[in-house]
């Protein structure tokens, strides 16, 4: 019960952080094994803890609207595949000018909105402008502000001019829903081009999608999907146990997994997430201004033991901000690894032989309090005293994020490709390294992804060596499903949950 209430609160913040702390994100349906014979007209019941606030992702729809509608109801010019690659979707082709500033997109022919209207370049222009609008709450708004001009020379051509080079532009476009420019009431209805159209949304309860008969691509492998929303993880698991739902998009209570693991009627899938648990130092505040102190603290904490105690056998260790699904991933778990002797030595060198005391601002929802207690006991062994200050998500936002009034804090950072925040000296953790800032800028201006990757790898290594933060572990992404189901996404990166390949045995 208490787990539920906290996660309810946690969810609200996570959604907010999810949307912004990233430069990008994504993942498309990495699909499970394909079943032999399946029911083409099945209804797939999906259980989730993340109900949309409304159905508009530029008006604060939250994490839930991405989960239910991204790729299912709305499509972008591009889509991100499960291994993080970009795939053309509504864009049939595109060309980039020599200076990297002009992108010319040719739209796929014969694409129809659910209302019946044919997709034109005007709709693409409208959709991009909607994301960039003054009142837009889109998470991609700041990334797309490089857009200077959008022209529509003909019905199937869109020409976008940028104010400066942006290697992530196409990637960011995968988050822009293409919406019928004439559509109204987008908070409660929809008009997209995806394989499903909205049937009904009962707030507080369920959202159902029906297969769209006029879809331009391969029809969905099931006739209907219904997202059922729960506030309580136990209630959600019970729904799976009683077959009220067929699959749970993201399992948040590891304690509950045993009842599924030892039952052949269910399959527990351990996918890759992009959510990292951080012990974020305030790099502007003493004593964490000293790189040796940060390295010492990182070395004094046994991340493996922490992960084990929070998630059992699930999740992964990371040595930096970069999860394995990011293109610039390198295994850096050996940097500032657990080594108490080294921690003591570094503390001595930094002049803190007798340790010191600091306050750890800890969000009051799982897993932060558990992690805080663990860190406190670990650091006590090297003479550092931790005062745990429990705060609400809202206080975290005001005190830590906005006012930077903290020494160290715990926070989950959910998005992929969010390493680039270390290039922003104004970010809440205050990591300020001119070289890193320059690398991040150069990476965004890069002419090729290879060049971008190379630069960001440097950033990755440098921030890891500097112990800019302590990256405790990478969360697991656990999808639990009925064994009759196949084809569901395993990674669900950035909360996406593509439903069109899900097959249900008849």
């Amino acid at each position, binding site marked *: *019960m208490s787990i*539920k*209430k906290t996660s*309810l*609160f946690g969810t*609200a913040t996570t959604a*907010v*952080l999810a*949307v*912004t*702390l990233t430069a990008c994100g994504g993942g498309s349906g990495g699909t499970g094994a394909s079943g032999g014979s399946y029911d083409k007209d099945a209804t797939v019941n999906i259980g989730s803890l993340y109900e949309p*606030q*409304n159905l508009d992702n530029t*008006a*604060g729809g939250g994490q839930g609207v991405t989960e239910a509608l991204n790729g299912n109801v709305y499509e972008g010019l591009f889509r991100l595949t499960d291994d993080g690659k970009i795939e053309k979707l509504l864009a049939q082709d595109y060309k980039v000018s020599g200076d990297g500033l002009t992108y010319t997109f040719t739209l796929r022919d014969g694409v129809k909105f659910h209302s019946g209207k044919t997709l034109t370049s005007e709709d693409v222009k409208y959709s991009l402008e909607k994301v960039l609008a*003054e*009142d837009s*709450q889109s*998470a991609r*708004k*700041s990334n797309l502000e490089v857009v200077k001009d959008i022209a529509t020379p003909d019905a199937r051509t869109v020409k976008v001019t940028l104010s400066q080079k942006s290697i992530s532009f196409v990637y960011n476009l995968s988050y822009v829903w293409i919406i019928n420019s004439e559509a109204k009431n987008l*908070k*409660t209805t929809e008009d997209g081009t995806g394989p499903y159209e909205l049937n*009904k949304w*009962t*707030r*507080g*309860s*369920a959202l*159902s999608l029906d297969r769209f008969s006029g879809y331009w691509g391969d029809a969905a492998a099931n006739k209907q999907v*219904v997202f*059922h*929303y*729960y*506030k*309580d993880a*136990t*209630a*959600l698991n*019970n*729904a799976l*146990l*009683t077959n*009220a739902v067929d699959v749970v998009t993201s399992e948040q209570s590891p304690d509950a997994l045993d009842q599924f693991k030892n039952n052949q009627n269910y399959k527990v899938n351990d996918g890759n997430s992009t959510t990292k648990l951080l012990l974020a130092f305030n790099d502007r505040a003493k004593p964490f201004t000293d790189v040796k102190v940060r390295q010492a603290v990182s070395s004094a904490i046994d991340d493996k033991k922490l992960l084990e105690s929070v998630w059992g056998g699930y999740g992964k260790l990371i040595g930096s901000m970069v999860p394995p699904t990011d293109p610039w991933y390198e295994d850096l778990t050996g940097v500032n690894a657990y080594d108490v002797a080294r921690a003591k030595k570094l503390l001595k060198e930094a002049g803190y032989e007798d340790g010191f005391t600091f306050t750890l601002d800890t969000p009051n929802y799982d897993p932060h309090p558990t992690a805080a207690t663990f860190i406190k006991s670990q650091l006590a062994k090297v003479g550092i005293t931790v005062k745990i200050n429990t705060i*609400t998500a*809202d*206080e975290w*936002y*005001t005190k830590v*994020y906005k006012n930077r009034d903290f020494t160290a804090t715990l926070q989950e950072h959910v998005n992929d490709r969010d390493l680039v925040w270390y290039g922003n000296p104004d970010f809440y953790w205050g990591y300020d390294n001119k070289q890193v800032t320059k690398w991040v800028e150069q990476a965004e201006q890069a002419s090729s992804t290879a060049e971008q990757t190379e630069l960001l790898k440097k950033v990755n290594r440098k921030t890891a060596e500097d112990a800019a933060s302590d990256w405790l572990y990478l969360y697991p992404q656990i999808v639990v499903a009925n064994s009759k189901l196949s084809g569901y996404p395993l990674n669900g990166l950035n909360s996406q949950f593509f439903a069109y390949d899900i097959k249900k045995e008849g």
Partner: protein
Amino acid sequence: MAPYLLRRFAFLLVSLVLASVVLFVLLRMLPGDPANALTSVGASPEQIAAARHSIGSDRPLPEQFTHWIGQLATGDLGTSFVSSLPVGPEVGSRLNVTVPLTLAAFLLAVLIAVPAGFVAAYKRHTWYGALLSGASQLGIAVPVFWLGMILVAVFALNAGWLPAGGFPPDGWDQPGEAVRSLVLPVVTIALVMSASLIRYVRSATLDVLGSDYLRTARALGSSFGRAMWRHGLRNASVPVVSVLGIELASTLLGAVVVESVYALPGLGSMLATGIAQHDYPVIQGVLFVSTLAVLLIGFAADLVQRIIDPRLRGRLSGGAP
């Protein structure tokens, strides 16, 4: 009766206005800023100011208050900060779950508690009288969510007779499924509610059993059953009705736990979400509607008491004589 009704109605209106002032002020004293929920983490101060302006939280409190009261007067509960959808229709759809849930649970609780409380008092020296009394004491100590989890484990997970939670997406258009999904929640609330009601019925019955008028009636030749029916029941029911009113009201507000355990889209879960998101219009809307319901229930309980007991008729409001 007419002047009483007028006065009682005026009393209700004044209470409602006072309650809405308290509600409004208390909410604004909570720490945190609803604009945080509206803007993304990278938001600039200008964006946050714009968000505040768009929801009106930058205006002076008295102005916000009169605006809200003005809306209420036209039956408009306002627009959610977070979803930017109107609050009224959603409250309405949530009431479709919460009202049947509360009323059915209440009815079931009365059906259990009245006979059980009577037996617990009348047969208090027998083993089953003592058992009932003990069981009700134990029942008071049982937390609602725990009982809910036990019932789900037994009747939904093991036996598979009833759904473990949820409400059909089409609501009462699927009457069979809607009723099935409410069975366990109703039983959960009713059991917990009847535990405390049994205590009240028992003590009211004990008072009556030891009363002079009952002994006199028996002395005059009335059978026990007849004496209880004519004199006992009427006297015992006055305090019980006032407790019933309070119980009904607290169930309406306390449904949040049960709705969470059973994943029901009711008023309680709407309130919980609203509070987590600092969504003032939602919180105000839900609490205003519940306050109204509680006041009306109190009104009804008073009326029933006056019908039962003529001695109360000089008083404006009251519990037991």
